[in-house]
């Protein structure tokens, strides 16, 4: 189902629709089919105008079995079209899904336009003449559904057929079966009288340029490759497989010709450890993970803070705590990113707001890490990782230069005139330390996790020196703010009664909600934060400009807690922790409630 959903998305992108997707699949690899736990859903929102979320309530639901219907029907508004695979609605399947009555017969779906399509038997009929065994034939039914929906939305047929050729190239019989099923579904839509007229979504008015369709994880992997090219440093990924971050490892492992080394380590700790070792050797060191892995990497992040080496730590957040909801989205790692290390161990944190934005954020993370010689945490989440959107491809020449200078000469002369390299003799502006790579003659030096004398870097237990080092490390990270652009306010910049402050993947829903509230005549402004530590320099002033501040987050209020502590503003939280993103309607309601004083 994820595969066919993905294909429908690509077809829509090819006809120029703006789109957003929400894959929603179980954590189990082969969860029992027909059970509620085993439902694999894929939501796609296509539009002829610019959209920023996968949409609120879908207008069409395709349910391949009773469990799918039961688990998804509440997400569909009354009046919507529901297409069911009637072949799957036998007594056994109904019982398995927890229905005591057949919902197709008891009137519970009266508010919907229901189309009953015998997808399994029609698929079998279409593919069995090819010599496909009955059991295998049934597997092609998702392609029947894809054909049917492609007809309904007039998606191009030929390119999907070509894609099937390529996707299953090693299995000619599967190619033939899937194509036959796809065509049968398409033909069914065309000839059956069930549908009066096809749904035609016109292309969105997007800025001109060349577009492609990317998931957040792909964009992130490509952003890392770009950062490697822009810095001239080979890319080294040390990683341990974990949902939903593994696709970054998969993608990067394909691109070795970009001088990329991927290392699947024995555990999360070795993943970040190897990345740090590679960073010490002059590579762009990266580790990728999700929540539980972040906990395991904490000690090495602390070491990287102490060593002051560039390192990228990428956290694709998922529902927690513990194993939590591995395939569902959440934003509950912010405070962990800020504070989840022992001792005073500050580091920069940035977050991506949309799938394609992951590309830019990866480059920015590398810029911060290399310029300030620090580990950086990049926060994405399950929603961005697997979600897709059309991406206006950037001009490669417009990307920033990330080259840094490594030390090649001694930087210290002692009282006897002997020259040496002091690894902690800092740049007075940035407070960044010089980096001398192993292999550089005459600059041999030792670094470690013990406290060191500022300057020489020698082990130092002096209390005053320790306090100075703690303060210098904090000042170095805080000082990055001087280099950040001011945060931009959108909406009713000068007159808003309420400011919505967001971060990460809530951007699309916030954007939609603010637009709706303003269209209804309310004065609302919004800012969306990419830099979460340090904050953009003008954030405090912006927050104090507006009477009300509302912070929607997929957690219990982590950013709002930081804003309140940092800026003494009465920031209110809109919380959701269901493993699902906000809808624009939910946030529109929250905005109205706070504006009208229903909530305050």
């Amino acid at each position, binding site marked *: 189902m994820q595969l066919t959903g993905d294909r429908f998305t690509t077809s829509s*992108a090819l006809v120029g629709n703006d789109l957003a997707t929400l894959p929603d699949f179980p954590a189990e690899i082969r969860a029992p089919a027909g059970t509620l736990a085993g439902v694999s859903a894929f939501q796609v929102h296509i539009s002829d105008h610019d959209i920023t979320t996968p949409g609120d309530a879908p207008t069409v639901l395709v349910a391949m079995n009773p469990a799918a219907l039961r688990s998804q029907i509440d997400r569909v508004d009354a009046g919507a079209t529901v297409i069911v695979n009637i072949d799957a609605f036998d007594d056994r399947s109904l019982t398995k899904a927890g229905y005591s009555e057949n919902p197709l017969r008891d009137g519970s779906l009266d508010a919907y336009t229901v189309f009953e399509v015998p997808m399994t038997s029609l698929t079998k009929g279409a593919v069995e003449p090819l010599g496909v065994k009955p059991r295998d034939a049934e597997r092609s039914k998702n392609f029947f559904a894809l054909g049917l929906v492609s007809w309904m939305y007039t998606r191009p047929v030929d390119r999907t057929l070509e894609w099937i050729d390529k996707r299953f190239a090693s299995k000619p019989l599967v190619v033939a079966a899937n194509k036959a099923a796809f065509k049968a579904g398409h033909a069914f839509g065309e000839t059956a009288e069930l549908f009066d007229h096809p749904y035609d979504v016109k292309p969105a008015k997007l800025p001109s340029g060349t*577009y492609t369709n990317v998931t957040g994880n792909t964009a992130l992997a490509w952003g890392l490759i770009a950062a490697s090219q822009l810095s001239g440093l*080979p890319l080294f990924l040390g990683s341990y497989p974990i949902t939903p971050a593994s696709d970054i490892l998969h993608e990067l492992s394909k691109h070795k010709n970009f001088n990329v080394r991927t290392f699947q380590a024995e555990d999360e700790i070795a993943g970040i450890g190897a990345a740090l070792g590679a960073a010490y050797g002059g590579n762009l060191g990266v580790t990728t993970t999700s929540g539980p892995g972040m906990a395991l990497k904490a000690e090495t992040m602390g070491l990287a803070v102490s060593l002051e080496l560039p390192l990228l730590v990428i956290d694709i957040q998922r529902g927690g705590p513990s194993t939590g909801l591995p395939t569902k989205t959440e934003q509950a790692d912010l405070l962990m990113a800020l504070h989840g290390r022992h001792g005073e161990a500050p580091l920069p944190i940035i977050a991506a707001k949309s799938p394609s934005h992951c590309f830019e954020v990866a480059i920015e993370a590398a810029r911060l890490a290399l310029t300030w010689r620090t580990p950086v945490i990049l926060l994405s989440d399950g929603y961005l990782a697997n979600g897709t959107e059309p991406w206006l491809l950037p001009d490669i020449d417009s990307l920033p230069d990330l080259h840094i200078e490594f030390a090649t000469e001694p930087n210290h002369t002692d009282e006897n005139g002997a020259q040496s390299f002091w690894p902690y003799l800092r740049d007075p502006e940035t407070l960044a330390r010089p980096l001398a790579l192993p292999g550089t003659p005459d600059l041999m030096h030792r670094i470690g996790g013990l406290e060191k004398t500022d300057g020489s870097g020698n082990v130092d237990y002096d209390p005053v020196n320790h306090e100075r080092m703690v303060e210098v490390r904090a000042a170095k990270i805080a000082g990055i703010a001087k280099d950040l652009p001011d945060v931009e306010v959108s909406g009713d910049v000068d007159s808003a009664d309420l400011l919505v402050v967001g971060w990460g993947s809530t951007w699309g829903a916030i954007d939609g909600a603010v637009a709706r509230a303003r269209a209804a005549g309310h004065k609302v402004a919004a800012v969306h934060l990419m830099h979460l530590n340090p904050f953009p320099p003008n954030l405090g002033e912006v927050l104090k400009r507006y009477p009300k501040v509302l912070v929607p987050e997929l957690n219990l209020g982590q950013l709002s807690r930081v804003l309140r502590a940092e800026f003494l503003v009465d920031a209110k939280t809109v919380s959701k922790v269901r493993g699902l993103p906000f809808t624009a309607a939910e946030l529109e309601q929250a905005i109205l409630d706070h504006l009208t004083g229903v909530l305050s």
Partner: protein
Amino acid sequence: MTDTITPVDDPVPATTRKDWSSDQEVRWCPGCGDYSILAAVQLLMPELGIRREDTVFVSGIGCAARFPYYMNTYGMHTIHGRAPAIATGLALARPDLHVFVVSGDGDALSIGGNHLIHALRRNVNITILLFNNQIYGLTKGQYSPTSELGKVTKSTPFGSLDQPFNPISVALGAEATFVARTHDMDRQHMMETFRRAFEHKGSTLVEIYQNCNVFNDGAFGAITAKQVRDDMLVPLRHGEPIRFGVDGSKGVVLDPQKGARIVEVADVGEDALLVHDEARPDPGVAFMLSRLARGPHEPTPIGIFRAVERQEYGAAVNAQVEAARAERGEGDLAALLRSGATWDV
């Protein structure tokens, strides 16, 4: 490789121990076995024909882990148990470097056991020196994963209950290609063993019996003291029958039922002795030799248990990168971004 490091074609300059010693005051307890290991390494380095700047010592946590501070090379004092993982990343990123890991029995076999076995089975080019003193020194005297059963320490006042690890057996079980043992009372043996480890392509594990004179003094005295060595150390020499004892009166045979066992040569004849072959593809015999002594109070083999050739991991990783570059050309970012379906608006 980075373009910031220019390869040097000049001959490697002649150096002495002093050139390899840092300006830092050595801070181990007076009388610690670590001093003699440091001396052996510093004396060996000038003989290896390598540059100081191309050499990196990586360590975890523990007394032994202070080692990098005393070497005038590049060095990294990292996290408890994680040195093999960090060194692996460095060795993969920089195959031009000589990467050493200095570890202890707690660091390598307790908190870092996972990283040790995986570094060994991958056969990444790092030389691991495991200082085994059978005690936790830096935390002041708790039993370690190599302490003998029943060890009375601060944390085991009624005696330890854990079966100890035999580091040689662990390494052989982890598919290590080079496994050796030496001890801190014999500088020449240490230097020779370290040299062989350095020359080996891949991961190497050298266990060094090291005396902690404060918390576990004399742990190896029964086998390493000068007056008992002949009878208690069983030298392994490639291609030679395994003999020891004054006048070589004792030897090792392989008994099909009982494994390796000690015999009087006069009883069995020299031809019956096991001829040591460090290059046996199967680690079985080496494993049996590792079980010859139940602890450092019985005749104990020292020397190289196993040295076999196998693909070095870093070279294989970099060969894949080079093959991809040769086949597909240098990566083109603009083309990568257009590698999926694209459309123009």
